[in-house]
């Protein structure tokens, strides 16, 4: 069965500092991987996705993630955090569903706090 682990429940960084959020997955084949962000009281917004090809993927808002098959990881990074990045971040792995959709399995999320 597919699973996702986000080992950090809370992370606090200073504005302008770099950020790395960790994500480890378990999946039997080449995974489809996603990072979503959720601002307070809002739905989830896609930051970036990996399906195949270049293992370093660029997303919106200056985020990037690197797929490392040998480590079963898909860590999210940003070189310089802005106060507006404070939110909850979810990593997800996509498996097969009847009818051809993605069965997304989510991690438990990492809450990011940004200190000014």
């Amino acid at each position, binding site marked *: 069965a597919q699973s996702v682990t986000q080992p950090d429940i809370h992370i606090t960084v200073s504005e302008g500092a770099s950020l790395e959020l960790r994500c480890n997955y378990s999946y039997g084949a080449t995974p*489809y991987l996603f990072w979503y962000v959720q601002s307070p009281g809002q*739905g*989830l917004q896609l930051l970036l996705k990996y399906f195949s090809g270049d293992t370093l993927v660029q997303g919106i808002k200056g985020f990037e993630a690197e797929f490392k098959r040998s480590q079963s990881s898909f860590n999210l990074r940003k070189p310089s955090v802005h106060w507006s990045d404070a939110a909850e971040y979810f990593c997800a792995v996509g498996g097969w569903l009847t009818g051809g*959709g*993605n069965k997304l399995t989510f991690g438990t999320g990492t809450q990011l706090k940004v200190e000014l």
Partner: protein
Amino acid sequence: DVKVTQSSRYLVKRTGEKVFLECVQDMDHENMFWYRQDPGLGLRLIYFSYDVKMKEKGDIPEGYSVSREKKERFSLILESASTNQTSMYLCASDAGRRHEQYFGPGTRLTVT
């Protein structure tokens, strides 16, 4: 701009009531999903639908049912609401396997 809308942002219901949560997408997506989100548990799939009138159980279907009579609309039904169904409910849709899911803003349901 793609959009998934949910009928209510906040809902308060009493134990035993029948509850309907509505979701509409305007992207002509084949697949639609209902999740519940609880602190420390992330998002868990309740039901999904890959076509009109087609539905499949997700990981936690107990106590829920769904209806999809039109392609753009996917309803989640709590036949007899219970306090352990107090949660945030998120609807999503996607265009298929190699596409991301788009999420609605969520409905925070409280059952008293």
